[in-house]
């Protein structure tokens, strides 16, 4: 049965009150005492299994490995032969400063108490119950690997943002599959539109709008670059259902776009005015909520930086002006039907409800506009894929949990099973947010260790992974691949030149995968 966590499960239960020392009961006199108690102090030996080597898995591993007496071992499993999760396959290839986080991960993988086992898919190659039986604890950090649907007629005509992102990030064995699956010719593209206006949508806009020269420091695979940069992109539109105040991208991302020399950003004056309802203004009033500052800064930035379009004629005029590239930010449009590959019918929406809870509603369904574009991309978010044997909340597409402890179908905490990252709180938030919720999960685990609630285990790996029929990729193996990728990159002045085929990995590490 699939069900959501019970409300009861979220209520603090006094009976569970722990020995955790907090800032409230902090007293300088007991400082040392507190410090000791907040570090893992058990002298028993534990082995943990982390499923997923993205930011969530990595930060949980990092915290666990900091235990004072080295009594904790961590095995990190990943279905893909390389580590890093979305840092490698999601974060845009021109965001190299963000990708630097990999070096931090490498330090953790070099810890002798940490082992990486790539090419192992939990649920297929090995079952969660096997892991639970043999490890002190299992931590689900497997992210949100599927894309959400909009749920409209003709949706299959749309190209998924994830497909493009996987392709331009050189996802293994995907290059040809992508080329074969798309229903458009890259070189014919001029105007591109994205449904959705989160940071993923701005990534797409930036990658399409930047010139080849501007992408030369990225690690976009060269074969991809050749195809992607063939067309001369004229404009990208990001189309959203709500108003400007509710934009999902962050100021950082639009500021970056606005700084590209050949790009101008546009807003429709009418949509801007419509955005300024009372509730939205309140949402942007500093102090009204923890988000207000960010909303306020972002809106002010957009108002100042974007050129305001008077009407449709003005828009057409700009669209046909070949002197520069354009980014159009569109609001209050909810897709209702995909007419064909190039045209989508939209309903005009309005905001309803009080500040921070505003929803968009379609008041007059007969009022429709059809927008055309050479390519329509869908970027409306992700969802966690259910894992066999693991509870799943089909409403929120996450693993039901309380502070990272996985809850069974009847709302009870499953001993030794934890969750963190996007699988825990849903596919929102930057890496910093993932770091913080992984830390919450870690603290619960630590507390469980301190209270001797978990089983001591030492030969977990032997009993599970060593019995696998398939070969796995260790960190040493991966380091070889990484070395050659870096070397290939150096020759052409790039951070790395990724290998696109499993076969390449096999040749380098000398085993069949």
């Amino acid at each position, binding site marked *: 049965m699939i069900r959501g966590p019970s409300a009861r499960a979220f209520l603090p239960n006094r009976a569970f009150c722990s020995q955790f020392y907090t800032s409230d009961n902090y007293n300088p006199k007991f400082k040392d005492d507190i410090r000791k108690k907040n570090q893992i102090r058990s002298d028993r030996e534990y082995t943990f299994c982390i499923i997923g080597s993205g930011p969530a898995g990595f930060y949980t591993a990092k915290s666990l490995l900091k235990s004072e007496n080295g009594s904790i071992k961590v095995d990190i499993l990943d279905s893909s032969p390389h580590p890093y999760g979305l840092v490698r396959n999601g974060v845009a290839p021109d965001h190299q400063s963000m990708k*630097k986080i990999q070096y931090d991960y490498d330090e953790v993988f070099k810890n002798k108490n940490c082992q990486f086992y790539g090419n192992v898919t939990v649920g297929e190659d090995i079952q969660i119950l096997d892991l639970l039986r043999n490890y002190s604890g299992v931590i689900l950090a497997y992210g949100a690997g599927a894309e959400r649907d909009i749920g409209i007629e003709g949706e299959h005509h749309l190209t998924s943002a994830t497909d493009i992102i996987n392709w331009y990030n050189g996802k293994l064995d995907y290059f040809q599959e992508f080329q074969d699956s798309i229903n458009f010719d890259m070189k014919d593209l001029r105007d591109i539109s994205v449904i959705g206006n989160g940071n993923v949508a701005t990534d797409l806009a930036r990658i399409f709008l930047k010139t080849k020269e501007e992408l030369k420091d990225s690690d976009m695979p060269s074969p991809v670059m050749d195809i992607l940069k063939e067309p001369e992109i004229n404009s990208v539109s990001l189309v959203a259902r709500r108003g400007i105040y509710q934009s999902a991208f962050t100021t950082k991302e639009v500021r970056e776009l606005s700084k590209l020399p050949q790009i101008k950003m546009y807003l429709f004056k009418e949509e801007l005015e419509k955005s300024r309802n009372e509730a939205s203004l309140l949402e942007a009033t500093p102090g009204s909520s923890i988000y207000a500052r960010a909303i306020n800064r972002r809106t002010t930035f957009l108002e100042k930086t974007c050129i305001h379009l008077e009407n449709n004629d003005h828009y057409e005029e700009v669209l046909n002006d070949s002197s520069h590239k354009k980014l159009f930010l569109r609001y209050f449009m909810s897709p209702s039907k995909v007419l064909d590959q190039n045209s989508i019918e939209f309903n005009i929406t309005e905001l309803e409800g009080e500040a921070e809870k505003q929803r968009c509603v379609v008041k007059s369904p007969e009022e429709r506009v059809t927008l055309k574009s050479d390519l329509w991309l869908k970027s409306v978010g992700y969802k966690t894929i259910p894992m066999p044997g693991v509870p799943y909340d089909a409403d929120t597409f996450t693993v039901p949990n309380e502070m990272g402890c996985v809850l069974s179908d009847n709302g009870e905490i499953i001993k030794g099973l934890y969750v963190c990252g996007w699988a825990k709180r849903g596919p929102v938030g930057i890496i910093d947010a993932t770091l913080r919720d992984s830390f*919450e999960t870690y603290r619960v685990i630590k507390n469980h260790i301190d209270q001797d609630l978990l089983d001591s285990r030492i030969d977990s790996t032997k009993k599970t992974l060593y019995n696998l029929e398939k070969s796995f990729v260790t960190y040493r193996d991966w380091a070889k691949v990484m070395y050659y990728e870096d070397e290939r990159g150096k020759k052409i002045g790039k951070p790395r030149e990724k290998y696109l085929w499993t076969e390449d990995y096999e040749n380098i590490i000398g085993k069949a995968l």
Partner: protein
Amino acid sequence: MLNLFGRRLCSKAAAVPLLMPRFRMNNMTLYRHNFMLNNLAMRSMCSKADPETVKITFLNLRDNSEKVVDAKIGEHLLEIAHSNEIDLEGACEASLACSTCHIILPDEIYDDLEYPCDEEDDLLDLAYGLTLTSRLGCQVFVTKDMDGMTVKIPEASRNFYVDGHVPKPH
């Protein structure tokens, strides 16, 4: 009052005061410029000895641990934290892309610093548990005036501490 770059320094190094502006200017260039002067003066003053240091306390609000460290003038707070094994993340290695190095400064030190640049502010928007004196550790450089200050590393996550409740299996 700005005078960030060491009143004490001015009185020691005779050549420097002439170059040091005595009025407050609100711009980043001056900040960096002053900063270079400061380093220059430093190098000429203590050519062979270690660079000058001040005492800074890091108070980690995650576990209330405190550590007093010798902080080299001119290094940024993330560097200082790392060379002293203090738990402050720096995911993007100080390239102003991540906000994991969020720290909280004492009021008077914050007030004396130049405003953060737009890019830093954009990241602070996203920082967890933002306060009025929040900054990014990789963007704040140690000055003499920071001697004796306490830098707070904010709580890492949500309501964990609110009621001291930790869920546990039956």
